[in-house]
Structure formats: structure tokens, C-alpha cells
């Protein structure tokens, strides 16, 4: 069935990027940015987003060159079968690990905020069940799911964060480069943002299923900057309200911001729960993207196209990874390790592929 309606549109690609980028890290991201860059967190976020943007352009460019191949496909045709498969395998491993770790991070956040007395395993299992039963669907269903959740993620964030304008203190934000800026600290903060939003790599699995793969940059750039704006907006608001020192003490600054907000009319006295629900949606779409990449990647490497089987077999592995870290501190160590040695190189990777493909004069289309 090659009906036009089965193809992913640019709008859907943009929404996939938005909902993938806004995920688990939403609640805690500001904490890490501020720990590195201090008051300069908003500016550092902007720099981090720019670094990620370069990677995005890499994937769009290579997607233009190989319009019919996924990441796994062009890995093989550019690097040759053995090395290509090895690279694809490493990428899958990185995302497999990230899926497990971020599921755990989600469970930790849930336990710390809404369900203090419930065992963490329940939220881990619930989340794994959710994305494992969805990730074997067709690509257009995957795109539709992302599309549907984006308004449910964005609208509550804006509703919760926007009223915080009343509580802004300008002195929290100045000087714009922070007090005593150090190059290392600033870049640490910026890279924290890059690591958190670098997960848009999943579009490499979606671009070949688009209606016009050559024009994918429209959706990709649009979606990226909308999500980027939301990240900067959230960081700026939390920094402006709490200031550097307060944020360093909080693990989930955005949630604390949500607790402060009251909506006019006194319908509900606190609406941080609403923020949490939208965050749960964000987590789900992000993990769905990761897992989608894992399932499709495994199937691509082994030429085994029973997505359902792979998805159900991999789910217990994810569970194993999720319960592996002893506590939240080791968890964050693992996450930082995988995202700095896994995700950041992935942003350079497409340029490397592009260079080799130009040298070897490989061009897309062969499936």
C-alpha cells in the first residue's frame, strides 16, 4: 500500500522532533544547566541548542542524499556491511541503554513527586508496557501518535509556566554570562542541553518514509526551533524565578515552579499535577522514539521484519537496565556517561558519513 496518506508529512516530522526533544529531562534539565553555567543558563541553553542544531542539519543533509534508506541502511552502504552493521549496532546499544535509564529517571521523578509510597517497579513496568505495545506500529501510526500528543504536552507547559511572569526577579538573570564565567563551566551547561535534546537522531529512521524526503529540512528545522524555544523559555523562567542558588538545591526545578502557580478562579488550588500529566505524555513520546529506533534498528541489522516480536523480546532487557542503577546518583552518572559518549558523538557522526560517502561516491536509493 503506497497511498499518499501513509506517508509522513513535514508537519508530522516537526511534531516528532518536538515531542522527542521534550521528554524526561524537562523537569530536571535546568538543574544541570545551572550547575554548569550558573546565571548564564539561558544563554548556555541557546549555545547548546545551536550545537545540537548542527547535528540536526547533518541528519537532514544525509537524509537528502539517501532518500530511501534509514540510518541502518546508509550505514551499511557507506561503510560497507561489517563496519556499517557494527556502527548501527553501537547506536542501537546507546539508545537501548538510554531507554532503560530514562525510564528509571521517569520512575524516580514519579516517586519523588506524586507516588512516594508506591514501588518504583510499577511505574517502570507501566511505562515499558506502554511503549512496547506501541513501537511496533507502522511509521505513519508512529507519526500520528507523536502528532496527537504534542498539543497535550505544549499547552499545559505554557499554561503552567506563563503565569510565573509575576514572580520574575530580573537580578536573577544578570549578568547574562553569569558571575565569574568560566569557559569550562559554561560549556558544561551548554552540553547538558545538547545531550538532553540530541535525541532527535530518531528522525533518521523516519525521513525515508516521508512524502518528500528532500524537503525534510522544513519540518525538521521548524520542529527543532519550536522545541528549542520551549527549552529556553522553561530555563529562563525557572532561573528568573528561583535564581542560581535555589536551583542548585532542587532536582526538578520545573516541578517546583508548577507548585508555585495558582490559577485564577480557585477551581483547583494546585495545578502541578496537570504539569506532571503533560510531562508523563512527554516522557512517553520520547521513550517511544528511542524504542522505535531500537526496534527498527535491530530489525534493520538482522533483516528480521517482525517488529512485534523484537519489541516484546527487548522489553525485559529495558526493564533490566532500568532497575540496574543503585540510586538516583549512579543513575545520573550513567545517563551523563551515555549521553556524552553516545549522543554527542552521534551529532558529529552524520558529517563523518557524508564525507565518506562523497569520497566513495555513494548515493542513496539502493535498498
Amino acid at each position, binding site marked *: *500500500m503506497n*497511498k499518499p*496518506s501513509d506517508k509522513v*508529512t513535514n*508537519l*508530522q516530522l516537526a511534531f516528532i522532533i518536538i515531542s522527542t526533544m521534550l521528554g524526561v529531562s524537562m523537569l530536571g534539565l535546568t538543574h544541570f544547566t545551572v550547575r554548569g553555567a550558573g546565571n548564564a543558563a539561558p544563554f548556555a541553553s541557546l549555545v547548546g541548542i545551536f550545537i545540537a542544531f548542527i547535528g540536526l542539519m547533518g541528519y537532514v543533509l544525509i537524509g537528502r542524499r539517501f532518500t530511501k534508506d534509514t540510518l541502518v541502511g546508509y550505514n551499511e552502504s557507506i561503510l560497507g556491511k561489517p563496519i556499517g552493521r557494527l556502527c548501527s549496532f553501537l547506536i542501537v546499544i546507546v539508545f537501548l541503554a538510554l531507554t532503560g535509564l530514562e525510564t528509571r529517571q521517569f520512575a524516580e521523578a*514519579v516517586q519523588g513527586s*506524586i*507516588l512516594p509510597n*508506591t514501588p518504583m517497579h*510499577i*511505574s517502570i513496568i*507501566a*511505562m515499558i508496557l*506502554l511503549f512496547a*505495545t*506501541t513501537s511496533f*506500529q507502522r511509521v*505513519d*501510526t508512529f*507519526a*500520528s*501518535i507523536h*502528532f*496527537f*500528543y504534542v498539543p497535550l504536552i505544549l499547552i499545559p507547559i505554557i499554561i503552567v509556566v506563563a503565569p510565573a511572569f509575576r514572580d520574575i526577579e530580573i537580578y536573577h538573570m544578570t549578568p547574562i554570562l553569569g558571575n565569574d564565567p568560566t569557559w569550562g563551566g559554561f560549556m558544561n551547561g551548554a552540553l547538558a542541553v545538547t545531550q538532553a535534546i540530541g535525541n532527535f537522531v530518531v528522525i533518521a529512521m523516519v525521513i525515508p518514509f516521508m512524502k518528500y524526503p528532500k524537503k525534510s529540512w522544513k519540518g525538521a528545522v521548524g520542529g527543532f526551533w519550536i522545541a528549542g524555544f520551549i527549552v529556553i523559555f522553561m530555563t529562563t523562567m525557572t532561573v528568573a524565578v528561583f535564581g542560581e542558588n535555589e536551583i542548585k538545591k532542587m532536582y526538578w526545578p520545573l516541578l517546583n515552579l508548577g507548585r508555585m502557580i495558582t490559577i485564577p478562579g*480557585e*477551581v*483547583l*488550588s*494546585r*495545578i502541578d*499535577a496537570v504539569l*506532571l*500529566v503533560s510531562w*508523563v*505524555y512527554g516522557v*512517553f513520546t520520547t521513550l517511544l522514539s528511542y524504542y522505535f529506533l531500537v526496534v527498527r534498528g535491530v530489525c534493520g541489522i538482522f533483516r528480521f521484519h517482525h517488529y512485534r516480536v523484537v519489541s516484546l523480546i527487548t522489553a525485559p532487557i529495558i526493564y533490566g537496565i532500568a532497575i540496574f542503577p543503585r540510586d538516583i546518583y549512579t543513575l545520573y552518572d550513567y545517563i551523563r556517561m551515555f549521553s556524552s559518549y553516545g549522543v554527542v558523538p552521534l551529532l558529529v557522526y552524520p558529517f563523518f558519513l557524508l564525507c565518506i560517502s562523497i569520497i566513495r561516491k555513494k548515493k542513496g536509493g539502493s535498498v
Partner: protein
Amino acid sequence: MLDTSQETRLTTSLDENVQTVKKVFKNDADFSTRSFHLFNNIPATSLFISSLVDKEKINRDIIQPLQEKRSSNNEESANSTKKDLLQSLLNDYLYFADGEKKQDLSSLLDGLLHGKTVILLDGESQYLLLDTLKTEKRSIEQPETERVVRGPRDGFIEQMESNISLLRYRLPVPEFRVEPFEVGEKTKTKVSVCYLDNVVSDALLEEVIKRIQDISIDRILDAGYIEQFIQDNPRSPFPQVQNTERPDKAVGNILEGRVIILVDGSPFALIVPAVFNQFYQTSEDYAGRTIIMSIIRVIRFLSLIFSLTFSSLYITIVSFHPEMIPAQFVVAASSGRAGVPFPVVVEVLLMEVAMEILREATIRMPQQVGGALSIVGVLVIGEAAVSAGFVSPITVVIIALSTIGSFATPSYNAAIAFRLLKFPLIILSGFIGLLGLAVGLMFIINHMISLRSFGVPYLSPVSPWNKQGFKDSLIRAPLRWLTERPAELQPKDKVRVESGVESGPTNPFKRKGENDE
């Protein structure tokens, strides 16, 4: 017996032929034969099943003209073309719209069982089949299940012929096709596939016909049987085929590029493909004013969401997030619950189950008792439960709201799907609160997004997004803006409203060349 007769041809002997047929029917009470002499001359027998035929019609239109003694020249001409005696009977003597000449036994039996009268002649191995079917039918009434304030009052009935005539009456164009099928090995139910040739997508039509032809079952007693066999996902709680009793709704859907399936013996027409949007829309929406009807649609949608989530949201807030309750209300909420012995989940579950029992009982009760029962149910049980301390008054209000919400949905099968899905949500949110509610909802949403009806995504035009389609979904834009037929159905002819209408009516009182100022 029947197996051997499949191949059997009739002989030229009248007696033998009559005996063969009599052997098949043995001594069925309603199998009748009537012997007479054709033109006072040739022995003939008419066979029919008296319970299915219009006897008056047989007397007046068959026996009478055939028994009449004809003048000699007619007789001669009849005799001279003896080979074509049957044909000449059809051509010259019988005033029948549906008459056929046949020769095999199986179609004779088939014809008899469909209310046809068979005329056997001595010395002929062929026979005449004349349609004399008369079945009992009720008059055309307003459909009970889909009442409207404004709109036509006629509804489908059990007889397919009448239903087709109701459709033809509204669609007098040659492109309107009614394609016949026969499904059910024993019931031999007639099924018609109706569509507009120049609108419907060929791929869709092919798929519908293929799915109908693939059905192999002994019985089709209602359109619901067909629905079960042609839907995409039989495990889903959501209806993927819409049914309607309203001819205007059926015609509206045909014009959008959908296919209607009529089943003989069922007053419900099936509409395929069906997307979720259709289940909270009514045909009346298009007859009223845009703003009002859009608001009403939103209300219906909200009430559907209410019926799904309201009780579980209540559980979540009361037992997991009491901080969300406004300060002034906390006292009322907690004092009402003071004497209740169960946790909120159990309380809500009890009441919801009681509500479902009441609903089911009200449907099955005889109508005279039903009304009384629902009053007893709502007033007495609710009141008694509160004063006995089983439930808190707020719970009763919440349950009542969520139940009423589901009754605002025009389509019964969609409403009941949502109402029963609320039970897993209640249990989930009773266990893990807000997370359970969010996860449960996500399971439902993900399932709905991946669901398809004849290849059309169930949640279109919302996801996948289609701006033109959205104008007729949660809202109903003015008719002159609905310029295109739904794109997800891929109609051959996309244009619904000519763009000329879009600019609006002109002012007849404005003189030519006059400016607006």
C-alpha cells in the same frame, strides 16, 4: 435430497415434475399446488409456498389469464410456435414485471423459497418463474435510536426494497449503484452495497466487496453479523463500522464517498469506513446554525470524555491529590465522606456497577415498567445509599454526571465502549493515582490512533492532521466552507461545494455601480 437435485433437469412429464418437487417439500403445510388447464387445453400446475405469496395476485394475474379460453387464432399461433409456448405466455398473456423462463430444478426450488410462483406445463421441460412475493412489513416510522429535533422523520425498515427506495428517492442520479450480494449459506440473506460511482474510491469499494464476499457463515440475521465480519480489528472495544436507521444520514455518507451496506431483514444500514468523529455527530448538525451546532458537538464530545474519565479523576484527586481541592471545598468533601466505610475506589466502583445494572435493566424491562424503574433507581437507591452511609453525596453527583454524559452521545455503541472502558481506568487510578489515569488514557489513545477502519486512520482528521477535514469534526464549519469531501476517503470527485458559493449571496437591493458607503 437437495444435493442430488442441484444437477437435475426437469422432464417433459408434468406429473413427474410435480412429484419431484413434492418429494422435496414432503408435506410442508404451506407448500401448495394448483392444477388447471392452460387455455382449457394443456394441463398445467402452479406451485407456490402459500406463506410467502400474494394469493390475490396469483388468482388475478396468473390463473385467471391463463385459464381463459382464447379465440382460435391465438390458440393456433400458440400451437404453431409450440416450442416457445412459455415465452409467448410471458410475452402476450402475463402482466408481470419479473418473469423468467428456467429449466433446472435448483433454481426452481430457490425461486419457490423466495416467494415466486412456478408454472409447469405438460410436455415442457422448462417452466416459468413469476415473482409473487408478499412479506409482512411495518410502516416507515421515525427511528427510535436516532431522534432529531429538526430533520426528516423517516427511517429504514426491515425490507431492503423499501430501504433502497428511500435512498433512491433522495439520490435520483444514474451514478447511484446498488450492487446485490447473497450472504449466509442457510439464510441466503440479500445484502446490497450502495455507493456513488463517480465519488467513491475504487480501492475502497473493491475492499468492501472483497470482505463481504469472503464471509462464509450459515446465518446473517442482522446487519450486526456483517459488521462483525468486515471490521478491521475484532478485538477493539471501539466500533469501526457505523450503523444508522436514517436514510438522510446514509445518503449524506454516500455523498462523502463512503459505502453503505444494506442487509435484508435489518433496519440498520452499515456505513464504512467509519472514523471516531462520526460517532458523536448527528445528521441534524448540518441543518442547524454553525456556531450553535459546533458548540453542541463540543458538548457531546466533552460528555463522552466525562463519561470516560470523570469518576477516575475524582478518585485520583480525593485519594492521591487532596492538595488540588480548593480550601473552601475540602471541608464539604471530607465531611461527606466521614461515615463511609470503604476507600473511594470501592465506593465509586460499587456505584458505577449499580449504574450499569440499572441501565441494562431499564433497556430489558417492558417499556411501561422501565420508566418507573429508572426513577426508583436514581431517586431511591441514590438517596438510600447516601443516608445509609454507603456512599458520600459527592460520589453520587460524580457518578450521575458521568452516566448522564454517556447518554448524550448519539451513537449507542460508541457510548457503551467508553462507559465500559472507564472501569479499567477506575481500577488503575485507584491503584496508582494520577499516573494510572494518565497511563490508562494513553493506552486508549494509542490504541485509537493505531486503529483503522478500511485503511482510514480512526482519529483522522485530527491525527493525521487534515485542515479541510477538521472543519467538519469537532466543529461544524458553515456549509459553504466545506468545499471538499473528506480527503482520507480519497474520493474521485473532491469538490463538494463549488467555490462560487463561497463569496456569499449578493444584495438584491444594491443598485449597480453603487458603493458600500
